[in-house]
């Protein structure tokens, strides 16, 4: 089969690989019909995630058709169209039993701090991902769901990560009626977090980024006020001014490890790998939140330390909430919101790229060229 393969930092290519095989009785093999590149893939692509091996196939946001099922699979059969949460999880460990699907303890031998994620380095379990013609889906009775007939395939694709994560991020912000919510980052996750914040009762939603084309999307798609931080002397002061010097009730970090805005922080983490991730957005969140406020961190950081301004977070009495998104937990309510037209995920898709051109897709998305917000990868099979 054809599959995207990592060849070292900033380098990927498409290779002929063996089709994945059933390794466990509850496995399924899924033929991928659509995959996406996620902001998280950039951490791998830039070589920031420890134990990212040359030869691995990335891709944790994908949908497809069941091709083959293991002997114990009860809920799926070949031919079913499925959406697959980006989490690999068992459904039965201590954490899964409590709904923490992204923190499963039975799927990742390489680390206890993080669960299993498709195509996301060995630190997240060493699973090949969905930017390929076929992918192995463990615990087929637990993770995947049959795509409802009425649901658009692009919407289904975004349900598997970006949409679920943005919506989850707004929930961890513990928004109450009348809150001012600041969202850092106008990528897919930030856009969905901003759109979701309204559903939870926000009175103001302010999105911050440095890419005007993405801020424009935040305005039109998520009805948000927008600020380009590159045009501000000091973004923290700007936020204070616009909130009557109170600060934001809730700040959502939808940026993560590659955060820009401070050369030294960015270069020491994204380029030199001396930090687990660039904490610029996280530090802005700490400074821009009001005392007693809440910060929701959706942005992903590596397992190494980062220079986070923890003292201010403590002094301000902030609540910090964060996790990888337990995707499937969000689905029933998200389906209602899509059906009611309150969330319209596919509107953020900007590019469709054949699998064979995935190297260009990565560069486009990483360097933020051509107005790229969300690239979708289409395998030819």
């Amino acid at each position, binding site marked *: 089969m054809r599959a995207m393969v990592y060849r070292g930092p900033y380098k990927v290519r498409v290779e002929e690989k063996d089709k994945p095989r059933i390794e466990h009785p509850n496995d399924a093999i899924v033929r991928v019909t659509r995959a996406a590149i996620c902001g998280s893939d950039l951490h791998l692509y830039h070589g920031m995630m420890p134990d990212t091996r040359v030869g691995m196939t990335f891709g944790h946001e994908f949908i497809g058709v069941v091709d083959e099922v293991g002997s114990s699979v009860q809920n799926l059969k070949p031919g079913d169209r499925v959406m697959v949460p980006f989490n690999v999880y068992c459904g039965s460990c201590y954490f899964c039993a409590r709904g923490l699907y992204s923190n499963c303890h039975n799927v990742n031998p390489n680390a206890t701090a993080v669960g299993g994620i498709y195509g996301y380095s060995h630190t997240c379990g060493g699973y090949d991902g969905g930017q390929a013609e076929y992918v192995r889906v463990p615990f087929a009775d637990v993770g995947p769901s049959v795509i409802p007939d009425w649901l658009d395939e692009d919407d289904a694709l975004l349900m598997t990560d970006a949409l679920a994560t943005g919506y989850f991020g707004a929930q961890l912000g513990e928004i109450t009626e009348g809150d001012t919510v600041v969202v850092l980052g106008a990528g897919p996750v930030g856009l969905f977090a901003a759109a979701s914040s309204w559903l939870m009762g926000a009175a103001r939603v302010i999105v911050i980024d440095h890419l005007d084309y993405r801020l424009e999307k935040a305005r039109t798609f998520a009805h948000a006020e927008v600020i380009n931080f590159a045009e501000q002397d000091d973004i923290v002061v700007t936020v204070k001014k616009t909130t009557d010097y109170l600060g934001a009730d809730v700040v959502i970090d939808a940026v993560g490890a590659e955060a820009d805005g401070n050369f030294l922080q960015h270069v020491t983490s994204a380029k030199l790998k001396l930090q687990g991730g660039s904490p610029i957005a996280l530090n802005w969140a700490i400074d821009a939140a009001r005392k007693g406020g809440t910060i929701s961190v959706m942005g992903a950081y590596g397992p190494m330390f980062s220079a986070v301004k923890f003292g201010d977070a403590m002094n301000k009495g902030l609540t910090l909430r964060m996790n990888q998104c337990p995707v499937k937990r969000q689905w029933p309510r998200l389906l209602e919101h899509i059906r009611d037209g309150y969330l319209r995920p596919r509107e953020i898709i900007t590019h469709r790229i054949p699998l064979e051109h995935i190297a260009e897709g990565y560069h486009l998305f990483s360097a933020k*060229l051509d107005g790229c917000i969300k690239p979708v990868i289409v395998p030819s099979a």
Partner: protein
Amino acid sequence: MPYTPDQPPTASPEELRARIPGWGVDLDPADRPAVPKERFAPDEAGAHWHFPERQEERWPRERSIEHAQLTPVFGTSCPPKGLSGVIRKHAYRTYSEGRAAHWLLLLGADRVDAWESHLRSFFTTRPDNPITQTGLRAEFTGHGLASRLGRNRADLNHQWLDPIIVGGPWIAAGGVVVSVVRRARRRRARRAATVEG
């Protein structure tokens, strides 16, 4: 102003509902799927086992020493090999996730892996090609210049580093190869000259 007890005024729910489709539909935390954070519901996830069957371990699978056992299911991408494999296995065997040495060794092994793989690729029919693999073509098809010029982008102050970080080692390695070949050729020419002379 936070200097007095008053809440700053905000738009009314009616205004917001008129402007934003769906405003407030999840106002009640009970409508939010992630609330409460933990809810014991072992039957909801779809597992029909108390503990999953074990996947076959086809090669010794490295694992965190913070795990009591190998997890029943695991990924089978890229078994460790070469020098990077030795470093990786050492990092897993020796240091917990709490130790910087664990992650620094793994990051170091990643860099070794990349170079081992580049070298190995030169002995295959498909050697690594940093130009196609970095997707540089997108600079032309994706309006590289227009996407950057005259825009207030905060990432331009470091994007120029990328070609140096990615291309630099290739150019250096190329230089080393060229000088080694040249020196060998010169030596051979000199030897030929002395034999003739």
